[in-house]
């Protein structure tokens, strides 16, 4: 298990939105940014789970909770407007995501839409709201999209998820170019298999978990591994890093 890293003040004075902060990777990212002094706006579906995340956010300059189901795309602009009332926003980390494990024949349009809505469209709406001239920090900002190793490799039953994560990487790249003149950096992070409530809910058997673990030379990841990388990609000092996708997967996609 890795030790917690602590760089006090790296995010001091920085207001950062984290979606999907109720659990898993989003929670771990919130906790890491809190350790480094961020002012946090945490978005999630479940108030109790968000409260649990907040309780772990020691070191934060402030933590506000915004309960929202990001599948309700129309509600996102008002959510970000409410966040902006607490101060202009430096960072957006779109970590909310849903998985879907189904064969192509069962990947009906409504099921596919459900994945794209949260994984991609919600991120787009958050990005549109975050980059508004009355919302974005005056000296620029930084976005991080959580993609996946499945943006780069495939697996049976993962068509909708692979599409959504490939779209995430593409979105980050296109936004990085368009928003560079406004000093908004945009990057994506492609983790390999991490044990989280989302992946736990993906109906994998114990044998399948063991098989996936065997495919990762450094083993299955932890949410904290992703959080350290996320903090690096969101770091205000990384002023030249944009349009990058970081594969963080214990060597999974090397093979």
């Amino acid at each position, binding site marked *: 298990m890795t030790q917690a890293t602590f760089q006090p003040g790296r995010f001091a004075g920085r207001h950062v939105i984290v979606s999907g902060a109720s659990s898993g990777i989003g929670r771990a990212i919130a906790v890491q940014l809190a350790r480094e002094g961020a002012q946090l706006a945490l978005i999630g579906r479940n108030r109790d789970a968000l409260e649990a995340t907040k309780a772990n956010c020691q070191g934060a300059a402030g933590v506000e909770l915004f309960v929202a189901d990001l599948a309700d795309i129309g509600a996102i602009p008002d959510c970000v407007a409410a966040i902006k009332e607490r101060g202009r926003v430096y960072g957006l980390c779109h970590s909310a995501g849903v998985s879907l494990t189904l064969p192509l024949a*069962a990947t009906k349009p409504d099921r596919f839409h459900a994945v794209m809505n949260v994984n991609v469209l919600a991120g787009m709406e958050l990005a549109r709201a975050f980059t508004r001239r009355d919302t974005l920090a005056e000296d620029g900002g930084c976005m991080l999209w959580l993609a996946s190793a499945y943006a780069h490799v495939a697996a049976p039953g993962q068509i909708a998820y692979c599409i959504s994560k490939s779209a995430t990487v593409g979105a980050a790249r296109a936004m990085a170019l368009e928003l560079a003149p406004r000093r908004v950096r945009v990057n994506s992070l492609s983790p390999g298999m991490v044990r989280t409530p989302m992946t736990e809910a993906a*109906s994998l*058997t114990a044998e399948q978990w063991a098989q996936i673990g065997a495919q990762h030379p450094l083993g299955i990841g932890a949410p904290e591994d992703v959080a350290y990388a996320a903090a690096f990609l969101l770091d205000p000092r990384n002023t030249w890093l944009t349009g990058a996708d970081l594969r963080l997967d214990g060597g999974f996609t090397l093979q």
Partner: protein
Amino acid sequence: MAKTTPSDVLKMLADAFEAPPGSIGPDTQRDEIAGWDSMGALALMAELDERFGITLTADESKKLRSVADVLALLKRNDALAE
């Protein structure tokens, strides 16, 4: 929740497993249905969840070995009209 009928269940299974209509009957076993593999099992789990609110773990899904097992599952969950 509206209850389903055995004949609708057979249609649901034929659709989930991409089997020819009418090829699945109440006595059909899992290993007689080519499409009832691991992917087909996931498709069935999705249908059970969406149509009846029945969620199964992967292990519970593995225990369904026949159409009769699916009908019994629906009956236990009060989703099957006789």
